[in-house]
């Protein structure tokens, strides 16, 4: 497969990454675990793609698109990172180091689009409604979807692979051992940052016991994520039933009092 073709295919994955939220409303195709697999599938190295996708997923577990401000673009970051690993033989550590600035840069590019192009589309929409042209709104939505998906999806991924692969390949061969060790250090710490971010959003005092429970089940009993999530679901159902019957009893009591 020629470099141009590879760049086009990775560009298509980038397009899908943006269209996931803009066309489908977030089916989570843009999560790294899916993006990595897609890049691997299209570039003919499924295994590397799938594993890199999983690693990126862990590193970026804590990045969440909450609120109106865009967060780091982990979809495009993991797409380009995985592509470099396959086209240039970059290791996970190097791929991560390249993907990180990409994800940050795309975040700012996203801010730019949301501040300029899409508000303009919206004003066109206002004018159409004034004329009673309601059909135009769907068209404008699709234009917005294409702007995001091409400008922030296809183009950066295509350019990165087409113009970047050779540079990355020569860079990969020239990295001194001490820098490589440093990059390994970064890739070891980042998942901890991701899970800390997750805890920051989900943890409150009443949930601390379950954090301990999950950790112990995995660290001491070596249960995997599926087993732990099933146990957690069982515990959650029990707690739900107990609390439900408690509040039912309470409301029955208060009704008796009012009688």
């Amino acid at each position, binding site marked *: 497969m020629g470099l141009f073709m590879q760049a086009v295919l990775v560009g298509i994955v980038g397009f899908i990454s943006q269209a996931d939220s803009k066309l489908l409303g977030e089916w989570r195709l843009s999560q790294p675990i899916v993006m990595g697999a897609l890049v691997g599938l299209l570039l003919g190295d499924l295994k590397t793609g799938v594993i890199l996708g999983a690693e990126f997923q862990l590193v970026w577990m804590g990045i969440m698109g909450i609120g109106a401000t865009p967060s780091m673009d982990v979809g495009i970051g993991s797409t380009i990172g995985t592509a470099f690993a396959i086209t240039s033989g970059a290791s996970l550590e190097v791929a991560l180091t390249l993907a990180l600035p990409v994800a940050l840069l795309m975040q700012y590019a996203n801010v730019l689009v949301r501040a300029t192009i899409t508000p303009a589309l919206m004003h066109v929409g206002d004018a159409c409604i004034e004329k009673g042209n309601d059909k135009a709104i769907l068209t404008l939505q699709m234009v917005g979807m294409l702007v995001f998906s091409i400008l922030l999806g296809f183009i950066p991924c295509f350019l990165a692979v087409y113009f970047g692969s050779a540079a990355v390949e020569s860079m990969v061969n020239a990295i001194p051992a001490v820098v490589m060790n440093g990059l390994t250090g970064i890739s070891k710490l980042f998942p901890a940052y991701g899970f800390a971010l997750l805890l920051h959003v989900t943890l409150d005092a009443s949930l601390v016991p379950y954090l301990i429970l999950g950790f112990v089940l995995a660290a001491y009993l070596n249960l995997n*994520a599926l087993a732990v999530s099933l146990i957690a679901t069982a515990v959650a159902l029990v707690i739900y039933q107990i609390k439900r019957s408690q509040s039912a009893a309470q409301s029955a009591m208060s009704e008796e009092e009012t009688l």
Partner: protein
Amino acid sequence: MSKFTESCVDPKSNVTSKDLMKVFWRQFPIHATMNYERMQGMGFCNAVIPALRKIYKDRTEDFKAALARHMNAFNCTLAMAPFIMGISIAMEEQYAKSDGEIDPAAINQVKSALMGPLSGIGDTFFWGVFRVVAAGIGVTFALQGSILGAIVFLLLFNLPNLLVRYYGLFIGYKQGSSFMEKMSKTGQLSLITHCAGIVGVCVIGAMIALNVGITTPFIAHIGETEIIFQDIFDQLLPKFLPLVCTLGIYGVLRKNVKSTTLLVAIALIGFALGAIGLL
């Protein structure tokens, strides 16, 4: 159309379950023109158009006014938005029948009032629980090189994703905001959120042990004896370093340090520790 969708619409109403299905398909691209001025405003308007067309049949000016109303600022966790769309359509119907007795401004007030709390719940469920649990299970397969990881992840996430959107739209239309009121009054809503949090946090705890692979290659030589630090940590507590590092960073986050600043700091620390052979 299914029994459920038929049961949600009034046979006397102009809005049929078929129209609501059109709204269901059109709610997916709600984010397509996300912008800083009115966020998902046009996306919301686009979604409810099929219902508004029926409600304001032959009333061009009222139809235009309704469209303009729903171009207003709107921002909500995407999967929760259909519920608010259902409520809005029901309110538009009441307003259209009321001969101007109802203030149409109330419609946008209800939308604004709901999007905050629903986003809070939605973010917990869709970012904090469904995505994390699905990814935790998917990663187990994917790390072994199996494509099953991505497939399992998508199936596990999208089952609740699609169900909440579908039932949200129809229940929102049928029961209006009384559904939310009932849920929060009886404490149901906070109890369900708490129970979902149990699953989410428990899996996060497991994933810290399973997937945060922090180990140290550092070995101290004192005279003849070698001290392998990793062995000491393992004896102390399995997965000691992943736990301590995650909780340490969590502690810093709680002090309201900007997450991007922290990211850069962690990259620098990680690089330094790696380069000198501690990580």
